[in-house]
């Protein structure tokens, strides 16, 4: 994919060519159909444009489809072809093999860049085959930093990768353009009064629509597979018992790290709990007031204003936690004698409380608008019955409406909890980086999302458990939030049906 034609990626240039063929096919087929019909569209089965569209469709869709599949599949084939070049002793375990293969890719990419910038000429690379010791410095100058010296077999594999990739790209270009031409030609030949062009086009469009709808499923599959693969790699390098049941989180780049999810899970749940303690009462009471007491004018002003809180990007809340709420809390609960309360409970601005409070603010509109919908869905007859028995408004709310709406509200709270668990920016900036299990809300703790960010940013090495652990964390997070959502949606849905 790094290869380019005139500065544009091959795929882009190829797409433009295919679209060009499709347009020519469109014009040609439409004209041919009209000519065959003697210039009178009434003699045709379908409107003339449909003949054009058949040609465009036949030209573009198979060709572009093949191109996308090719782009996905080629790296895999190349990798398999290169593998025999690497001595078996070096690929004893999957981790080492991945490391070497990623080195090979980096060297191959680096050689491409070096040649395009003129830092190397192909003959020089061939000359280096026996002793590539100064390749690392050369690649360094073109911005491709390598972790270790280039071994001769890595260079050989990289050269083969480059050769195969270039060959593959050439074949891709040829195949795709041929397919486009064949498709356009077929449709051109078929164009004529007897050809049911509209039906063909509509079937094609339907297939495209189905394809678009399945993309959502494909995304989910992609998420699960990508995380599953790397998680499996992680569990090969690291004991799963330590990950799920261990007690400490201490990544260590010399290896032999403690990578246990429990302290992170504790931090995540603690912060989410505080966030819910803030958001649920405020959100719920706001929803009750808005749906039961407020007149339409107050409602039409207060509801959108509250919902602004949900539209503010999380980075803003993160900054608010780090620079405003954190220091304010330190002024109140920290600084010993100089502080507001004269206590010394808090030493830094980042803490469970900081992140929890700010996250709570973010979740208020989430809880309130969901609960609002649910309270509104409670039938008026229940209220009228309660009023008729002489209950006051608040008694009606507490004893009739809330019990009736309870399952829905529980669902809303679960959805809010899943939001809180997956929230990233507020905890990255506000919660701190120390993994510990403690009940003190004034201490800094860390969360699953924070660790994913820190393990996957900066220099990452996809053969070390310290990097791969992020995928296992991500998978756990995904399963956790997905589970909460499924349960919440199930509860909300069952509840809604109750009164319909």
């Amino acid at each position, binding site marked *: 994919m790094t290869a380019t034609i005139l500065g544009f990626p091959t795929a882009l240039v190829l797409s433009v060519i295919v679209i060009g063929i499709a347009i020519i096919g469109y014009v040609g087929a439409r004209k041919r159909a009209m000519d065959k019909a003697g210039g009178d569209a009434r003699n045709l089965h379908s409107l003339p444009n449909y003949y054009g569209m058949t040609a465009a469709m036949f030209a573009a869709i198979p060709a572009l489809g093949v191109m996308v599949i090719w*782009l996905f599949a080629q790296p895999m084939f190349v990798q398999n072809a290169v593998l025999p070049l690497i001595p078996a002793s070096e690929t004893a375990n999957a981790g080492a093999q991945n490391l070497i293969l990623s080195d090979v890719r980096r060297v191959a990419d680096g050689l491409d860049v070096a040649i395009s910038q003129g830092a190397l000429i192909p003959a020089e690379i061939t000359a280096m085959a026996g002793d590539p010791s100064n390749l690392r410095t050369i690649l360094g100058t073109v911005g491709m930093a390598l972790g270790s010296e280039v071994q001769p077999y890595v260079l050989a594999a990289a050269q083969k990768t480059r050769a195969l990739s270039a060959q593959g790209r050439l074949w891709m270009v040829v195949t795709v353009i041929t397919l486009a031409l064949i498709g356009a030609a077929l449709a051109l030949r078929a164009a004529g009064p007897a050809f049911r062009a509209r039906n063909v086009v509509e079937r094609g469009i339907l297939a495209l629509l189905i394809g*678009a709808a399945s993309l*959502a499923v494909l995304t989910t599959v992609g*998420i699960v597979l990508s995380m599953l693969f790397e998680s499996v790699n992680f569990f090969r390098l690291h004991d799963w018992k330590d990950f799920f049941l261990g007690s400490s989180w201490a990544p260590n780049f010399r290896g032999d790290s403690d990578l246990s999810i429990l302290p992170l899970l504790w931090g995540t749940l603690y912060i989410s709990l505080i966030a819910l303690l803030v958001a649920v009462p405020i959100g719920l009471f706001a929803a009750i007031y808005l749906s039961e007491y407020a007149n339409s004018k107050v409602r039409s002003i207060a509801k959108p204003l509250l919902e602004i809180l949900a539209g503010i*990007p999380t980075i803003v809340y993160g900054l608010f936690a780090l620079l405003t709420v954190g220091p304010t809390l330190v002024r109140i609960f920290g600084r010993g004698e100089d502080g507001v309360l004269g206590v010394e409970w808090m030493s830094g601005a980042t803490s469970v409380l900081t992140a929890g409070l700010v996250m709570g603010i973010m979740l208020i509109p989430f809880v309130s608008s969901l609960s609002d919908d649910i309270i509104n869905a409670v039938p008026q007859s229940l209220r009228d019955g309660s009023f008729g028995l002489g209950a006051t408004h608040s008694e009606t709310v507490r004893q009739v409406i809330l019990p009736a709406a309870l399952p829905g509200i529980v669902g809303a709270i679960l959805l809010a909890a899943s939001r809180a668990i997956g929230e990233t920016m507020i905890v990255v900036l506000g919660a701190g980086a120390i993994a510990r299990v403690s009940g003190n809300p004034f201490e800094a703790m860390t969360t699953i999302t924070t660790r994913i960010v820190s393990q996957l940013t900066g220099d990452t090495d*996809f053969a070390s458990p310290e990097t791969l652990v992020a995928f296992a964390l991500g998978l756990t997070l995904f399963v956790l939030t997905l589970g909460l959502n499924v349960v919440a949606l199930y509860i909300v849905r069952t509840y809604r049906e109750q009164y319909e």
Partner: protein
Amino acid sequence: MSEPTRTHGSLLIQDARTRNRNRAETRFKMYGIAAISIGLLMLTILLITIIGRGTGAFQQTFVTLPVELSAAKLDKKGNRDLADIKKVSTFGYTPLMSAALEAKVAQAGIETTLKPKAMAAILSKNAAATLRYYVLANPQMIGEVVEFTFLTNSRVDGYLKGRVTRDSIANDKNINAAQLDLVDGLIADGALKKQFNLAFITGADASDARPEAAGMGVSMIGSLFMMLVVLVLALPIGVAASIYLEEFAPKNWITDIIEVNISNLAAVPSIVFGILGLAVFINYMHLPNSAPLVGGLVLTLMTLPTIIISTRASLKSVPPSIRDAALGVGASKMQSVFHHVLPLAAPGILTGTIIGLAQALGETAPLLLIGMVGFIASNAPDSISSGLLDPNSAMPAQIYEWAKRADPAFYERAWGGIIILLVFLITMNAIAIMLRRRFERRW
């Protein structure tokens, strides 16, 4: 027969129990009002904080100095050959500025014990580069006296904005009290003042040592390219998926799976999409790290469910009579959808798309994983392909980057960046609301 015992008094006088119940009623209502007030108070505090802390970033302290572009220093050979002039590095320009500042101090009659070099330390590290660019662009001006407006050091800027005080600089190596005296003198003279700083909006990020020169411009372009990718991919795919699910899909278990999938995808934490992007687009497909194209692809996957949900709602709101009428005059099912239903649903779809884009614009977490932070995007891209493929940042990622740096001068810029980001979001949402008001049809 005895008289029935009266448990209640007069209807006109409340008994204790009624009073209690009424009090409970009032209390309950007060809780609701309090909850809403707290919510609105938080919103107000947030907005006041943003505006209060961020507006400073749009102003910067500049000092106006006449600089003699001394030929002896800049063009020793005297041949005005650009190649020779280029040999003078930014270090060669520093004495010119010291001299200019010294002359200014003498002319304004400010008393100071500072050496010229220490005086020049109140200027930004960027100032010499500004001067050099000017000379390289206008070599004919060598030997003349030209008036320049230089950025000052971020500490001087902080002094004018109240962030840096004479008490707070005791341990600061970058500035001392004598320099602040000089600054006071220059303020009195009128040469040094705060003014609007366009470079914050249009400029590029700067290194840790030059917060005064950092700007949002380049990351704005990065965000723009990402939004372009999201729009080009998410809108057609989202609309196509919604049309299928709403108009054509048969009711069976496959459709059910797709529907459940979409509603669950909408609730997947955004960072998970970042992991997907890293694993699939960067590690597997080898798309370049930090490229807006990758960011756009990840945000597309994230925005799709939002767009699908809102598009389906607007397709659903088109009454069946429209479809029936189209079918009645001989349109095929496909024609009825594309010629009649879709145009009528277009305003709703557009509104949903804009709201989805606004969401994507403010999203940060997935961008951290695909490497859109941690480097300095110094040059604006010069073509569409470099805009899509060259490393760049995005607005929220830039804000995060500034929030992590140690110098408090960057915090002000982070808040200022948030103001710019919010202006974009408010504009987009306002357009969406306007579209809805203007074109919404009630059937």
